[in-house]
């Protein structure tokens, strides 16, 4: 293998590395969104067993809570994007949240596959480079 080919291999490795980093960032963001949707689904489902006027704690950040009373158990406010939130019946909201979670889940699966593919390509290049290093070390030994 010529010096130029080795340089090309290293450059391809670096490109795959950058691609893998970007994919992993996207994956972690998608996983966080999926977890958030999972928490929302759990909370909405829990509303069906709650009572109107039941005491609840509303998170206000940093693990702190404000006392509140539940005003409704059959309707919730759902964010629809673009800075807009709508009042929806619980069953409709749950359906939307579950649909979003399924879509994100599919995205997570595809991103995971893409990461594995890129990592496979990187492993192949790494193996070729290691073989070259061994060969080079062997030939140096012969010279000595």
């Amino acid at each position, binding site marked *: 293998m010529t010096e130029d080919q080795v340089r090309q291999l290293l450059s391809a490795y670096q490109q795959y590395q950058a691609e893998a980093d970007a994919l992993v960032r996207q994956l972690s963001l998608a996983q966080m969104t999926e977890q958030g949707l999972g928490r929302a689904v759990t909370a909405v489902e829990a509303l069906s067993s709650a009572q109107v006027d039941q005491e609840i704690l509303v998170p206000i950040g940093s693990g702190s809570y404000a006392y509140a009373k539940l005003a409704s158990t059959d309707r919730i*406010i759902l*964010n*629809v*994007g*673009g*800075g*807009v*939130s*709508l*009042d929806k019946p619980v069953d409709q909201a749950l359906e939307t949240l579950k649909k979003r979670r399924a879509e994100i889940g599919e995205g997570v699966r595809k991103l995971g596959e893409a990461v594995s593919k890129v990592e496979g390509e990187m492993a192949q290049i790494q193996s070729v480079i290691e073989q070259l290093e061994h060969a080079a070390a062997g030939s140096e030994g012969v010279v000595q």
Partner: protein
Amino acid sequence: MSGELPPQVQNQLAQLQQLQQQAQALLNQKSQIELLKKETEAAYKELESSSDQVVVYKNVGELMLRSDRDKLLAELKERSDLMELRLKTVSKQEERIQSRFTQLQEQLRQSLGQAPPRGS
């Protein structure tokens, strides 16, 4: 390597790199606007398909303000139109950069063709 190139060629190469960076920045900007536009359109569609009496809130920072459906629909439409306009502007900038890039590439090719062979 670049030390062996004539200053004019080095300058053209630097300009090409700069244009490439500008093109990348524009591309990022464009995909961000496209994403926001898509989100705005989806919100518009959702709100439009809701009843006239729907209870609707507008997110303002950490607050959610009770708002009017029709007023929000108009705001979303205006925002979507604004993004469309911004997309057109970015596309024009992209075209200008692409054209300058091609022009510079041709100049560089000519300069390299005229450059004296290395070592002479």
